């Protein structure tokens, strides 16, 4: 079943500004005042700005070739535990809770390239309802499962993601959001094949790590999930 979550509207800029004016401390959720009628919100933890990413009327992969060559995560990567010493170079973030209705089902170390150098290896956590072995990323996304990826910071944060899309004229597919104290870029992505879902991707850096979340879910759910790390 194809799902599409191509447009989102969240909160307002004014509210975010008010949150700042209220003296909130980003990343802690603590306010310097207790006189507020409404619960104070830290920047990136309260209501966000209204954003809309229209679904492109025509865009997608041309072919199976154009859809890239993808292998199962369990084939392309190494199955590990978050606590595994091989994953420790990332200092993995472990979410306080999985996305609603899902559970942690797998963790992989996935190299970007056959060089396999540490800076080119992602730690990928999969949240779903069943084992991810034998599934590609696209299949995982089609199942409604979520991907959390992270690596030591290597220059793929929010600003770089925006720049990368602008380079190919696709900046309209991105919107800036706030994740705790950090800027993040939300991207409406393309399905990898005609029957695929159109997922969102959320990319940011927290200084020590570059992170992303991918899921075919309402975009605010990705943002909220990311915020649980920092808020």
């Amino acid at each position, binding site marked *: 079943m*194809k799902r599409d979550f191509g447009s989102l509207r969240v909160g307002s800029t004014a509210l975010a500004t008010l949150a700042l004016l209220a003296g909130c401390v980003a990343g802690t959720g603590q306010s310097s005042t207790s006189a507020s009628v409404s*619960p104070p919100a830290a920047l990136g933890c309260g*209501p966000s700005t209204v954003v809309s990413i229209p679904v492109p009327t025509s865009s997608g992969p041309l072919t199976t070739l*154009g859809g890239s060559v993808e292998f199962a995560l369990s084939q392309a990567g190494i199955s590990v535990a978050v606590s595994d010493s091989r994953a420790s170079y990332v200092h993995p973030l472990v979410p306080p809770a999985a996305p609603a209705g899902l559970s942690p089902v797998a963790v992989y170390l996935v190299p*970007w390239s056959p*060089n396999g150098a540490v800076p080119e290896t992602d730690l990928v956590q999969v949240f779903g309802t069943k084992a991810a072995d034998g599934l590609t*990323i696209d299949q995982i996304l089609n199942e409604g499962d979520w991907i959390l990826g992270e690596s030591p910071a*290597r220059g*793929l944060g929010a600003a770089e993601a925006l720049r990368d899309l602008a380079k190919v004229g696709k900046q309209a597919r991105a919107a800036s959001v706030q994740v705790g104290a950090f800027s993040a870029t939300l991207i409406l992505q393309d399905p990898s094949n005609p029957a695929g879902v159109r997922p969102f991707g959320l990319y940011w850096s927290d200084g020590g790590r570059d992170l992303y979340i991918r899921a075919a879910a309402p975009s605010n759910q990705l943002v*909220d999930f990311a915020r649980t790390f920092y808020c």
Partner: protein
Amino acid sequence: MRAVGLAMLTAAVLAVPADAGVYGSNTGAFTNDGSYGLTIDGLATFQMLHQLTVPSGVTIAHPGQVNFQTAAGGDFLGLGTYKGQGPGQDPTCSSNYGTGWTVYADGRVLGVYFCQPFQVLSGNAQSQSLIIQRAAGSGSCPGDPGPPGWIVEWQLVELECFSNLRFSSTQWVSAGAENVGGTTGMAIGLSYVQLQFRQSGHTYEYWPSRYVQSDPGYTITYTGTPAKPGVLIAP
């Protein structure tokens, strides 16, 4: 301290428009995908194009591409020629039902498909060199001091440098010819005079015949001496 009690977390109003993307079925004349267990940072195809007429709504494309197996989204960069309906339904690569073939690059960056057309070649253009390769050093892409990008070249002239693909190499490359929206056995209008890839730190080498496969309805003839093999395809 976490502030999970912040009740004002993102009250989203979500519109769910239908996906208006339109796709056709694909019929590959041949595909040459796979993991070679090598560290590859360059792909070179030398195309010999043939004149043909493409029916409305059909795309014929001759892509060569480097695929980046990543959890971030299966990004890739391709370079080739097409005629007929624009690839990927992307309006940037407009339809071309004329006699010529359009040189184009396409790919996926952070999960988003893009397509970029370049010049139009004659319908029977010969020995067209199309190369995708990792640039030589940092700052190689204009305006980007970052890691080396990937360059696409036509006839040894740089067409574009993609600094947004932060991959030093890949073990997944592919080349082929295919139609979208057409029929099996449809004329595909291409011979590869040469197919080559480059392993990191090495010079280009010829693509072994054992990596060439055809789809039903097509015949592939691997020709030439060991020094210069080519691939001829025909319905």
